[in-house]
């Protein structure tokens, strides 16, 4: 259950007149994990909201699994694209957390017992299994975000879209979200995430797309994109901490994780010019 997505010269103009996406062409292969980065207002959320049909192109085409979203309803797209909103309160509505997470699979035609099993498993993945009987408003905003994530996991869609998944999460919450991203990807499902957390991005995504002013400014392998310092600066994106440090120290290596960084530190020549007082 692995499908590709494609944006072809996508433009989107809001009714108020703002053109938030101004000609984006982008192909995401089945099973890829792609992070979309850029400052507030760059058009990231507008772009991905086309994947589940909440927004329809002003012009251009969006293909999910090879078929245009134009001819399909939100309900049809929901079977293929799971979407975790930036604000979880936009998507939680049931009176218990368990019922909320079961809703998606039941809506996709699962039997009640299958839906309950999927919900239990998804809640365990986000470490909220003990809270299944509570009302969502008994949880903190960061926990509600994890409920929304569980709801999408339970639908087992081939594409998962995450809008700012680590926002407001504490250290453990970020780890849980990272584990979810890794496991979805390991199942060959396609992950598209919007994030401001470049360190999280470096550690868990293979490919990075930089957006600014409704356009793609850079796109490619994570290491290569974070090396395009000028482009990143114009898009107001700061490279991950360890990449900045390696560059500052004059290293050739571009480490994405603490382990890669420490490994590189034993091999890189020490440049006396790097001294910082």
């Amino acid at each position, binding site marked *: 259950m692995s499908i590709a997505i494609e944006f072809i010269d996508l433009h989107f103009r809001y009714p108020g007149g703002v053109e938030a996406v101004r000609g984006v062409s982008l192909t995401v292969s089945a099973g890829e994990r792609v992070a979309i980065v850029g*400052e*507030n*207002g760059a058009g990231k959320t507008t772009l991905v909201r086309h994947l589940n049909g909440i927004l329809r192109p002003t012009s251009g085409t969006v293909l999910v699994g090879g078929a245009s979203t134009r001819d399909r309803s939100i309900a049809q797209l929901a079977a293929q694209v799971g979407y975790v909103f*930036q*604000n979880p*309160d936009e998507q939680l509505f049931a009176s218990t957390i368990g019922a909320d997470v079961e809703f998606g699979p039941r809506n996709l035609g699962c039997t009640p017992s299958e839906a309950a099993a999927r919900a239990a498993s998804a809640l365990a993945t986000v470490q909220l299994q003990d809270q299944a009987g509570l009302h969502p408003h008994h949880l*903190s*905003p*960061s*926990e509600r975000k994890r409920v929304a994530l569980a709801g999408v996991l339970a639908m087992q869609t081939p594409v998962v879209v995450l809008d700012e998944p680590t*926002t*407001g*999460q*504490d*250290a*453990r*919450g*970020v780890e849980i979200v990272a584990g979810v991203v890794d496991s979805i990807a390991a199942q060959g499902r396609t992950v598209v995430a919007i994030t*401001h957390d470049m*360190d999280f991005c470096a550690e868990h995504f293979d490919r990075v797309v930089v957006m600014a002013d409704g356009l793609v400014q850079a796109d490619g392998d994570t290491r290569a994109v974070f090396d395009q310092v000028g482009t990143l600066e114009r898009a*107001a*994106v*700061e490279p*991950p*901490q*360890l990449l*900045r*440090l390696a560059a*500052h*120290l004059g290293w050739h290596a571009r480490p994405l994780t*603490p*382990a890669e*960084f*420490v490994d590189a*530190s*034993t091999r890189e020549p*020490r*440049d*006396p010019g*790097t*001294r*910082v*007082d």
Partner: protein
Amino acid sequence: MIQLADVSYAYPDSGRFVLEHVDLRIEPGTITGVVGASGAGKTTLAKILSGFIPHVDGGQLSGSVVIGGRDLSGLPLAACVSQVGLVIQNPFNQISGARYTVRGELAFGMENLGTPRDEMANRVAEVAGLLRITDLLDRSPYELSGGQQQLVAIASMLVLRTPVLVMDEPTSQLDPAGTRMVFGVLSRLRGTGTTIVVFEHKPELLHAHADRLHVLAGRRIAASGSPGEILSDPRTDQWGVSATRYTRAARLAREQGLVPAEAPLPVSFEQAAAFFGWSARTRPPSPEDAR
């Protein structure tokens, strides 16, 4: 000065204490960070510091909460509100809904406090300029993005010019540039004597801006110290506090025996550059590097 002595609290009808025997002293004109895992009681502490507990939420509060020499529990809520501005975690809930524009929303609190009309307009213009939301003043507060709403929520407290500001995750909806801008504004306010208590997860920012950090864990204050001390403490994982990647990489280097075990761990970029560039200087990092 803010002083909490032996504060314990249980929400109404729960019988379960979320904070127990909390002692806390906060100096005036400083930025204090409170860190800890979700569910550690940070939001509860924010409400206690601003009088919303017990005045609005009720519950069982014991101990004393003294701000500017007066115990908040003995003051009516209106008096607490003029002392302490609380920016709550979800900016959408901060918007009163009583006014149709951002400008009206920002003036709303001042109207309740009886601020003269000219003065209100001046303060709205000044704070909107500081937070770069001047172009939003005539928009509806409900038509804004999450990040814009958060800036409006912060502005609605700044215009009140309370001597104390308590902020519960004030940058959760903002991009890095917006986050830096807000902390820049907080640093300016500290310079004019405002006391700021901020509940925040982002370690690089706390290190750059906070004077002191307190860790909330196990229903009490588990540790207090400078940002450098707290964020490089070996217990950060156990507390549920994020360490910077610089600290994580340095810890790993130490575990692998690449640096002396006594070398102080870096928290900031500058410290990490000194730490990992140390062999170029033919000496291991010294305690001065962590200053």
